[in-house]
């Protein structure tokens, strides 16, 4: 019992640390990447090649003056960013980061905080609560711009959740009906990655993930040409930092979910051959670590794609955003669901 708690504690801490670390260095990479695309140098003052820039930014955020507007609801004003951060970190607990390994005493240790059999629904649930952080913060600021930003953010997130949910249903149908993330990733071990069977589903999921994380071209909630700073107009110091930081954690987590759902997670082509060539036994810790490396590579590629899109595409207009969500993505995801059922019936995976 004690060792179980200890192992889970260590896993939690590691996942927490990795989420924060990746998010911190995503901020630096975002700036470096934009510099690359715009033919600039980017931040290069703090540390060698600007590698300490996230620490400098964090330190700056902590020491800035903290302003809480007099007329606002103080408790809710503080609750907003905290809630947004909590929901951003919650999703990481069901993602399988690597294959299970067996210790010398014959104990199975998994690279996942918890493998619940409703993992997919859990992710949808946490995503649907994520709205509250923005709404509470935007309303408690007692500022028209912040309120408008908050309402934009939440209506956008609610609208795109539907298409996302339906594309996940098609994914679950084509992966054999398990709602556990561990099973979804394991099932891609022997065969091909799910994206081969679900190309349209992946596209819909990807667009919805962009909208859910409020990234460009869907960053209307913080559209500075119309809404000053959007829902975080009134925020300063580390509370603003939490909002900005949680966005990068969301990006990291949704990249992880996409690579687990559609690109095989910790599996990669010719994995068995590689392990065989290296002489590794099933259940060895090295297999887990190599798998984790492969998973991480996929996540980093996805983060790069997110940034590439941000620095390439202009922002949508609000009516375009709603049209895309309700009139294009929703029918498309329903069509994908129907198509999936037909294909799976032909493949012989569904019986009546």
């Amino acid at each position: 019992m004690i060792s179980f708690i200890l192992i889970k504690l260590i896993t939690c801490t590691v996942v927490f640390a990795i989420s924060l670390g990746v998010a911190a260095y995503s901020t630096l990479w975002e700036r470096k990447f934009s510099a690359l695309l715009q033919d600039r140098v980017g931040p290069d003052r703090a540390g060698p090649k600007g590698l300490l820039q996230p620490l400098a930014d964090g330190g700056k955020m902590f020491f800035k003056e903290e302003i809480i507007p007099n007329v606002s609801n103080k408790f809710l004003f503080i609750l907003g960013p905290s809630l947004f951060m909590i929901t951003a970190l919650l999703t990481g607990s069901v993602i399988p980061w690597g294959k299970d390994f067996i210790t010398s005493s014959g104990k199975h240790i998994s690279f996942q905080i918890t493998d619940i059999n409703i993992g997919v629904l859990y992710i949808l649930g946490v995503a649907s609560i994520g709205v509250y952080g923005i709404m509470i913060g935007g309303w408690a600021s007692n500022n028209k711009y912040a309120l408008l930003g908050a309402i934009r953010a939440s209506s956008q997130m609610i609208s795109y959740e539907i298409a996302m949910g339906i594309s996940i249903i098609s994914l679950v149908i084509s992966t054999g009906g398990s709602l556990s993330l561990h099973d979804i990733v394991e099932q891609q071990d022997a065969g091909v990655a799910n994206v081969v069977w679900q190309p349209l589903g992946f596209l819909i999921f990807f667009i919805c993930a962009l909208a859910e994380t409020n990234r460009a071209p869907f960053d209307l909630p913080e559209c500075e040409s119309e809404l000053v700073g959007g829902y975080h107009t009134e925020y300063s110091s580390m509370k603003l930092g939490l909002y900005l930081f949680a966005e990068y954690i969301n990006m990291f987590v949704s990249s992880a979910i996409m690579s687990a759902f559609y690109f095989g997670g910790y599996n990669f082509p010719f994995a068995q051959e590689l392990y065989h060539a290296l002489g590794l036994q099933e259940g060895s810790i090295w297999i887990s670590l190599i798998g984790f490396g492969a998973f991480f590579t996929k996540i980093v590629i996805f983060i790069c794609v997110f940034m590439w899109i941000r620095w390439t595409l202009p922002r949508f207009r609000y009516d375009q955003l709603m049209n895309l969500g309700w009139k294009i993505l929703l029918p498309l995801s329903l069509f994908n669901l129907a198509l999936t059922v037909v294909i799976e019936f032909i493949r012989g995976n569904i019986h009546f």
Partner: protein
Amino acid sequence: MLGYTITQWLFGILSFLAIMFGLMVVFSRNPVNSVLYLVMAFFCIAGHYLLLNAQFLAVVHIVVYAGAIMVLFLFVIMLMNLNQDTEPQRTWLTKIIAGISGGLMLFVLVGSLKGSEQLQLTTYGASQIGLVKNLGKVLFSEFLFPFEIASILLLAALVGAIMIGKKEIK
């Protein structure tokens, strides 16, 4: 612990929190706070579903109620910007009427609950019925007809809501 199992402790704590948040919904002055307390009460109820081994119901409860319906409530209340200045002043007469009708409601509820002790609880299937797989199998075989009727009812309500929401009907 004090003669109770962990499940009983959890049940007690969750029930206490659910009732407390329910009371806070009624007593809090600010409507936005009321909505947030209601969300907390929904989370406690989702915890109860988990204790009953009904994971699917718990998550759907959170997704639908806390994640969608209450967000719309919050929308409306935030946009109306209700506060104490705009709140209509209540007279003594309305307070007395509200007190009497509330008391009668309590009387009816207590009376009906008192009779319910004799009712036999019919449990369906094993305790694993709340798991997604078992629930889906039962829902789409044995209870297919009521399930479809319920979905048609929901669809009709949806269409009706859209028709009411339209400004002019062509």
